């Protein structure tokens, strides 16, 4: 039985670790490369509210397509919540009602390794910008 304290074992462990890390990067790189042709389309990228701070509403249709079938999730990355997951799919469609007073980011993320394959932002804009006057006591000029 090999002793852990053996002077030979430490370099071997380091080499093995480096090989594993390299292999992992290769898999991720390969995953990303495989999905370079990813399509991540939103029916709308802008939501306009009347007033700053109001919740903005918009019916959004998302369609996505990747090169190879795999398990992916549509994630609201602003709040880190999953909207929908697909198993062994190369494409999908999802419809939802966007409701937010602020812009939000969405990603298509692999389930196995949490790799973001695509990213999209829904920008919230408004007509009337409002800023609040500082609270004050009675004043006259």
């Amino acid at each position, binding site marked *: 039985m090999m002793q852990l304290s053996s002077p030979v074992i430490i370099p071997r462990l380091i080499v093995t670790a480096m090989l594993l890390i390299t292999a992992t990067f290769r898999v991720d790189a390969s995953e990303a490369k495989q999905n370079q042709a990813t399509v991540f389309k939103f029916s709308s990228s802008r939501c*306009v509210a009347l007033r700053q701070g109001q919740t903005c509403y918009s019916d959004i249709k998302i369609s996505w397509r990747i090169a190879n079938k795999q398990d992916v999730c549509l994630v609201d990355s602003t709040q880190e919540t999953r909207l929908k997951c697909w198993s062994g799919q190369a494409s999908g469609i999802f419809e939802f009602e966007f409701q937010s007073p602020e812009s939000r980011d969405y990603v298509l993320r692999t389930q196995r390794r949490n790799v973001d394959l695509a990213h999209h932002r829904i920008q919230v804009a408004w*007509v*009337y910008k*409002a800023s609040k*006057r500082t609270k004050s006591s009675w*004043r006259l000029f």
Partner: protein
Amino acid sequence: MYSRLPSFLGYIATSLILFIASFSVGAEDIARAIRTNSQAPGMVENYIEFGRKYQTGVKASLGRIRDDYEFEDNFINGSLHWGDWFVERFGESNDPYLFGYAVHNDETWSIDLIFGVKYEDLIPRQGRLEGLGHRNSATLFGGRATGFFGDNIVQFSLRQDISEKWSGHEAFALVGRNWQVKNWNFHGMAGVKYFSSGIIEYYYGISEEESRRTGLDAYKPGSFFTYTVELGVTYPLSEHLVFRATAKGRTYADEATDSPIFVNKRSTGYSMSTSLSLVF
């Protein structure tokens, strides 16, 4: 001067009581805060918008028997602030330019001193009214208090005419509410407005001399109240384009329509309007 105070306070108290008792019939059209869905006291907004509106309705009329009307017109709405000073206008409802100074604001109330010129060319001197003397515009100065209670807004205003040609004052109280359905912003408001006899006599009264010139009967009206209601919706088509639709109802006081100046003497008026505005 002081002897007038109790009767004046009486007018205000009566106005408020009538206002509270008349939620279904009251309103006022100087409520930019309600129309633009402003939901907090002391909000500073800087914008200007140019729009075009179409309006149709029925109203008491000065110059003709028919009470129905329709027209298209351009308008300017806006709100500009420099520190505590501001100028605002909701021209879409024919409100005048209002210059003001924010005296106080806390979590619930905003109180402003306001100054504006109103009633310019209120009585056109044409046709049968050609012989009337010129009615000058009113230069009104006073205060306005706006209270925010959740989605509800209440507003009280008291303005005194400070021009030297005649004297008078007006007061209004209104309550309004905003609610949002998706990106549609609805508002509703109801209010009551009081005009003192000084204002009314100046605009709707007919002196003996004018009676001789025009052939109209001499007329000396007193003070009165009017009530208005308004329902509207605003939708942002883009960051710079806004659609509005508004329905309004109002009463006309007999003190006004009994004046020989009025040809059609309806006691109520209604209007519907739609508009598109470019906002900057």
